[in-house]
């Protein structure tokens, strides 16, 4: 299991991309929360969480994503997720994460969809 996480932030148009590397477990909290806290919540309302297809989420990793979604909801941000393995796409759906974030096959699709959303607060999730 990979241990170290890196979170790289890129801005592509109106979309802020959090490029997350490494398995998502309890140890990931500081890195992911740290990355998300660098986002200007007043201005940046479209966020893409880009993972590595090979990564693993455990229960606490899912909790980190859920808490991030809760924060995003408070800030009225739209969240997209990309590059998940089939297994974790199913897990995300199973635990209800897809109620608050849409999953895309590729970053390009996700960015296009986020850019296409007319305004913040529009029905975004699945």
């Amino acid at each position, binding site marked *: 299991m990979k241990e170290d996480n890196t979170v790289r932030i890129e801005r592509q148009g109106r979309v802020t991309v959090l490029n997350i590397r490494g398995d998502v477990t*309890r140890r990931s909290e500081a890195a992911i929360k740290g990355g998300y806290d660098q986002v200007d919540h007043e201005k940046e309302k479209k966020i893409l969480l880009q993972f590595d297809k090979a990564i693993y989420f455990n*229960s*606490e990793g*899912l*909790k980190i994503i*859920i808490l991030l*979604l809760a924060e995003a909801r408070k800030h009225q941000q739209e969240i997209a997720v990309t590059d998940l393995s089939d297994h974790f796409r*199913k897990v995300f759906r199973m635990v209800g*994460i897809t109620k608050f974030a849409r999953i895309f096959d590729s970053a390009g699709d996700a960015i296009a969809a986020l850019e296409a959303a007319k305004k913040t607060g529009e029905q975004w999730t699945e």
Partner: protein
Amino acid sequence: MNRVPADKGPEEGEDSVKAALEKRVYYLRTLYDISKELFGKVDFDVILKNFLLMTMGNFGVFQCFILTCNGACDRVMHFFSIGFDEEMETELKAHGCRSLATHAVCTTETPSSEHSAQPDLPPDVALTFPFRIDDDQVGLVGLGPKLTEEPFRIHDRELLGTLVNNLVVALRNALSFEQISSLNRELQVKNEELEKTLHELQAALRKVEILESIKANLCKFVPATVTNMIERSPTSESLDASERDLSVMFLDIEGYSRLTEEVGGTEVNNLVEKYFSVFMDAIYTNNGDVMETAGDGLMVLFLSDDDKTHALEAIRAAAAIRSQTNRINRESPTLSRPLAVNIGVASGEAYIGALKFESPTGSRWTYTAHGTLVNIAARICDKAKGGSIMAIRNTAERVTEEFPFASLGRFHLKNISDDVEIFELKPG
């Protein structure tokens, strides 16, 4: 496993089975994750927090809490929550224990296996599960609504129940670990105390060794009777003078002054040591105690509680001294004349105890016998010549079965008002 609804087509049914299977696999994975996470921890709070965080992820909820209460369900002992505001947390703490009481967890050995939301908890709590850790602690885990907005179903409750069972095992392990740690700490404290005591004992032992060494050296100069009395009762008044029946022996080397002139001081010293060594053997073998020495003479007490015994011991010692002296005389023909040891023994009442001599420069203690009997013994020793053993009637009569004494008649002894009949031990 969930049953495939009959009104769905084969393809849809297959998807449903696949989804259910995936869910079960996910549950298994969850169980594995939680077990791995919880069983690696021994801190009670950390286990509770981690369980809560993992449960949140597993069930996909924004809100969850866990609390433990004392066995009587009237005091919250641990409380952790995620996603509830402060007001809600206060309400959860206030009603959590009460909810456990209504679950009867606080009065029964094992909690019921599953519970839905409780009416006395806030409506945001969609599912609760009570648990018992031990006789002193029970707990409650509660989840808010699912992110999926679906209701909690039976398999969710089953999963939560299984996870809670693992949690309870982990918490019990933590408690056991804490007890072991506590016992270890106590043991460590006791070990430190023991070590300190050991050091103190070793120090005390060193002092005792020093005292023993001092005693061993002092014993060379102090009569055994005194040593024994002080050992038995260091502060008692047993050293005070009292009258008792005893036998006192005086022993004198005949012609000691002439001998000193003849062979010189060093040689006399050697001779005295040689003869006195065998005298001491004879004295100690017969339980005698040398009270005083003065050049060529000894004063010896025999203090058996039995009157006849101490008289016998005194005469046996005297006879042995005479016999040993004759032997040495035969084996050491260096002297112009053989050495003669004269002995006087008297048995009867005498004062024995400590005498204290006070002076401006200090005090000196001595333990000895004194009185007429002692003076008589000294005088008859003076009268003895040529290595004879003399005694008074009292002594002679007590030993007559073993030692034949013959009366020499009555004699006036210096500073003794009445004449004293003196007996002599016939040569053996």
